């Protein structure tokens, strides 16, 4: 069942000090980068290898990584940016990669810089990572410079790559890649209109690739193994491994890196099952912004991009939020909607106003003041937000409403008719 468990991003976990260079080298770390430094292959060759591996971005949208890299033009000044803002509710895998295997990320960023033609890479951490995750990353960066893995004319190869750590200052929206770029430029985190995309107009207007921590940390392991290994793990359309953050009502919440396509039932079992011997009620399978799925839908579901899409949800950020039979789904939605309302940057009217509407209506329902008309509002407002905004936060605010309403409408109706929840003590 636990075939290929924690073999890539979490490969050093068994080591007494997993975050050190020594630990990383003991699992084959920096082998891929040393080879590149020695052989200096055309950068397009590396892009082809990453394309062939089938790697898709782990930040949420699942965009093919090799293809993203191939958009980068040959030019004097371009950048690679690592999105370590990890802030999608329920997600805590990037933090563990930073704490336990920072060298995999550094090697991945170095390779990505080379492959995209970037001379410098920026790793943007959310401010809340100021302590341990940042310390570990900085220590690892120091080690990487000292052992001649980074810097100018690395090992006499003529290759120059410098990596810099930077910090945000508290704003969920800075996880959105163009808001992140604005933040790196020292501005408010307002998402940009797209197009142009970052590959044309990114950091300081230069071509830029933005990738998630896990995406980049996977790259060295892909390149140092024989071709076909990574895509041999997982499913045909969802190759490779994936870090799942399992949280909520399970006995042993935790991060597990497993092949894509792993049955949800196996993942649940790894986490000790639903806690307190209770029944499963629902799962948010990809971070708070994706539609919820009821227990019936989860029973036979495999955790990969296509299976989740077919079930009406998404793999998103890999955050698997488990809810037991006592969960009040109306309150869950109210809590989620409060978050998007608070974090909307306010640039687009549908998102700014719509998230406020949703939160107020849900609060009214939870407080026993809901009316039949409120259900209609919950249906209409998301439709008016979805697809009508600058960035996907608007969609992220709309999808959970649509998902919970689709599967748990009865709970809303009960609140509205009886002024209280149908779950728990009557």
């Amino acid at each position, binding site marked *: 069942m636990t075939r290929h468990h924690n073999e890539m991003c979490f490969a050093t976990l068994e080591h007494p000090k997993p975050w050190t260079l020594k630990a990383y080298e003991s699992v084959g770390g920096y082998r891929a980068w040393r080879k590149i430094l020695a052989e200096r292959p055309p950068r397009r060759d590396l892009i082809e290898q990453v394309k062939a591996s089938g790697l898709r971005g782990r930040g949420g949208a699942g965009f093919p990584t090799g293809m993203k890299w191939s958009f980068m033009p040959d030019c004097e000044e371009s950048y690679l940016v690592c999105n370590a803002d990890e802030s999608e509710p329920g997600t805590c895998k990037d933090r563990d990669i930073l704490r336990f295997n920072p060298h995999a990320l550094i090697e991945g960023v170095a390779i990505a810089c080379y492959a995209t033609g970037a001379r410098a890479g920026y790793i943007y951490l959310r401010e809340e*990572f100021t302590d341990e995750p940042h310390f570990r990353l900085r220590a690892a960066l120091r080690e990487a410079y000292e052992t001649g893995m980074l810097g100018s004319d690395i090992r006499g190869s003529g290759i120059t790559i410098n990596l810099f750590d*930077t910090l945000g200052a*508290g704003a969920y929206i800075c996880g959105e890649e163009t808001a992140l770029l604005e933040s790196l430029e020292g501005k408010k985190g307002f998402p940009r209109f797209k197009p142009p995309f970052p590959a044309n107009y990114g950091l300081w207007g230069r071509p830029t690739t933005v990738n998630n921590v896990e995406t980049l940390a996977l790259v060295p392991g892909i390149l140092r193994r024989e071709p076909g290994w990574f895509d041999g793990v997982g499913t045909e359309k969802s190759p490779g491994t994936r870090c799942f953050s399992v949280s909520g009502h399970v006995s042993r919440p*935790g991060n597990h890196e497993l092949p894509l396509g792993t049955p949800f039932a196996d993942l649940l079992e790894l986490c000790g099952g639903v806690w307190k011997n209770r029944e499963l009620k629902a799962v948010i399978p990809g971070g708070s912004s994706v539609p919820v799925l009821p227990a019936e839908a989860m029973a036979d579901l495999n955790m990969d991009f296509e299976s989740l899409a077919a079930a009406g949800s998404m793999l998103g950020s890999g955050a698997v939020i488990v809810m037991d039979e006592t*969960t009040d789904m109306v309150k869950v939605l109210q809590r989620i909607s409060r*978050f998007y309302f608070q974090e909307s940057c306010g640039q687009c009217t549908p998102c700014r106003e719509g998230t406020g509407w949703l939160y107020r209506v849900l609060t009214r329902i939870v407080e026993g003041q809901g009316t039949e008309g409120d259900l209609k509002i919950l249906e209409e407002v998301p439709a008016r937000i979805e697809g009508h905004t600058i960035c996907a936060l608007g969609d992220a605010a709309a999808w959970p409403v649509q998902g919970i309403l689709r599967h748990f409408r009865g709970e809303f109706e009960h609140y509205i008719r009886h002024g209280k929840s149908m779950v728990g003590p009557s």
Partner: protein
Amino acid sequence: MSDILTSDLCDRIDAWLGRFPAEHRRSAVLGALREVQKEYGHLTPERMDAVADYLGLPAIQVYEVGSFYTGFQHQPVGRHTVAVCTNISCWLRGGEEILAHIEKSLGIRAGESTEDGRIFLKSEEECLAGCCGAPMMQVDHVYHENLTPEKIDKILEALS
């Protein structure tokens, strides 16, 4: 150097500047404000002006950043910042009860500081990426996970 930006603070701001190409001094605004806040506890218009001067930016560009990000404080706050996550995964495991316990034992609401200036209970909206250790909180950005009221009391008592 000025009364506000001591030579030590300038060095720390320079370390942020050093990460960016020389022509992009604006990129150091977040880092500079963070250092200033670390030094003085909170930001004021004078302190932001000093940063703007040092980086050679119009003051408005610094004010904008100061007001956009929730990590920046504009009023005096307690010495230690406590941030309790009540986002979805923590909420499912009692995050709100944890917050209520802290509010009660400190006698303040989220967003306030204790009178002795010891603790600032931040009003936290974000998930803090410690979801598998829910319920959790950060004290000065250090993670404390799998919280219980007893555990919290110990942590809070130990803060000077």
